[in-house]
């Protein structure tokens, strides 16, 4: 272990390259998941029976099965139906769809927390239902969602590690190949753990900054004044 710092520095460029890909697929999955999650949450909260059913079905399926199974079904299963996707696209789809289901639930919780009153007040001045959602409910619900939603980027970042199983050259895949090359799995995986930890730490800083900078003066979840 005494030469771990040397080991770490020697493979750092390679690992950072993998970390870059990890960050990229995390960001892609997060953005796709957010858009999908938001639409799903809106459909489930304000949609008619059809859209509600669709939203519930999607959420149940993707929260109820392991990410790895979803990834394999997309990468190895879809070709059986004549749809062959690249590794990167498969990883993106699996992560986006999976994250979307979780984000939908976080966002739905805060949509419900805003309550019927705000909707009624919006309708009362002549705003349509969807305009009220857009101008009144979402700006509040998104802020309210941040603390709970903050779990998702961190969780997704770590979940991306499974995509090394379809040989996407991200951080975990690099560690695996370094471990095989050097016969030193302890040092390899320790190095990777440190880099994941550092990324999560930085991510937390960003999320906290977001939470603080979107605060509404005099208004928060607990002290929600009538």
């Amino acid at each position, binding site marked *: 272990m005494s030469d771990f710092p040397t080991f770490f520095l020697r493979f750092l460029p390679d690992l950072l390259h993998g970390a870059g890909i990890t960050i990229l697929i995390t960001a892609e999955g997060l953005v796709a998941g957010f858009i999908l999650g938001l639409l799903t949450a809106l459909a489930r909260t304000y949609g008619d029976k059809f859209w509600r059913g669709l939203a519930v079905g999607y959420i149940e399926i993707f929260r109820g099965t392991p990410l790895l199974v979803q990834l394999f079904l997309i990468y190895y299963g879809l070709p059986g139906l004549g749809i062959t996707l690249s590794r990167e696209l498969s990883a993106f789809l699996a992560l986006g769809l999976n994250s979307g289901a979780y984000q939908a639930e976080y966002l739905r919780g805060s949509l419900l927390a805003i309550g019927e*009153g*705000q909707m*009624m*007040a*919006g*309708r*009362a*001045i*002549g*705003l*349509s239902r969807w*305009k009220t959602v857009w*101008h*009144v409910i979402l*700006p*509040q619900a998104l*802020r309210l969602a941040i603390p709970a939603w903050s779990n998702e980027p961190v969780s997704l970042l770590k979940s991306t590690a499974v995509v090394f199983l379809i040989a996407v050259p991200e951080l975990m895949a690099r560690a695996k190949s370094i471990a095989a090359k050097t016969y030193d799995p302890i040092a390899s995986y320790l190095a990777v753990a440190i880099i994941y930890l550092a990324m999560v730490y930085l991510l937390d800083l960003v999320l906290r900054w977001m939470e603080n900078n979107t605060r*509404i*003066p*005099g*208004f928060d979840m607990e*002290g*929600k*004044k*009538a």
Partner: protein
Amino acid sequence: MPETILEARNLTKVYGQNTIFKNINLKVKEGEAIVIIGPSGTGKSTLLRCMNLLTRADGGQILLDGEDITAKGYNEDKVRQHIGMVFQNFLLFNHLTALDNVMIGLTKVKKMPREQAIKKAMEELRRVGLLDRADHYPGQLSGGQQQRVAIARALAMDPRVMLFDEPTSALDPELIGEVLGVMEKLARDRMTMLVVTHEMGFAREVADRIVFMEKGSIVEEGSPDDLFYHPKNDRTREFLWKITELYGKKEKDKGGAA
């Protein structure tokens, strides 16, 4: 003869097995302030919400300026622009400043240019005495101030009629006066108003007509003098006696009629 602005014809509302109210007939004439009183749970608030279509009535019609707004396919968003509503629990938009709360209807519903909307919104805030609180968020305002902003928000749309749903019931006693003051001023300016309240002082001083509602129907209506001093119905007398007993002391503390 002033024209009728808002009218309920045989209005009926049913929730499951419960009839909330039945065959309500009510006319609100231009410049008139009508106060609806009555025990809790008699459908007063539901009646107000039916009047601007926030709740759908199960029977009867509502006419705004003679037009049947309950007719199928009628644009209800359009209707609500013309009927202002003030809620018991204010329901200001929490993420917007007082000014933006008053402005949002102007810019997003009426599509008024921003500069013009600001001017109009400031004018309304001045009307309720809150010009100096324009940049405050609802969470930074007292209950009384929030309710006055809510009144300004409704007034900004230049409604034909204003509905007030127990506007002071959620307020601390010392804050009730400022809200009633604003409402009194509106009534003096001949704003057409339909008010549900338990503030008997306000009803007696400001109302042109008082409507006593109980168990889903209108029991009696008339001028404040008629209702307070010569009620025809035993139930009206009983209710007024009970409520003056309850509120009388408070009014005395405020120095005579509130």
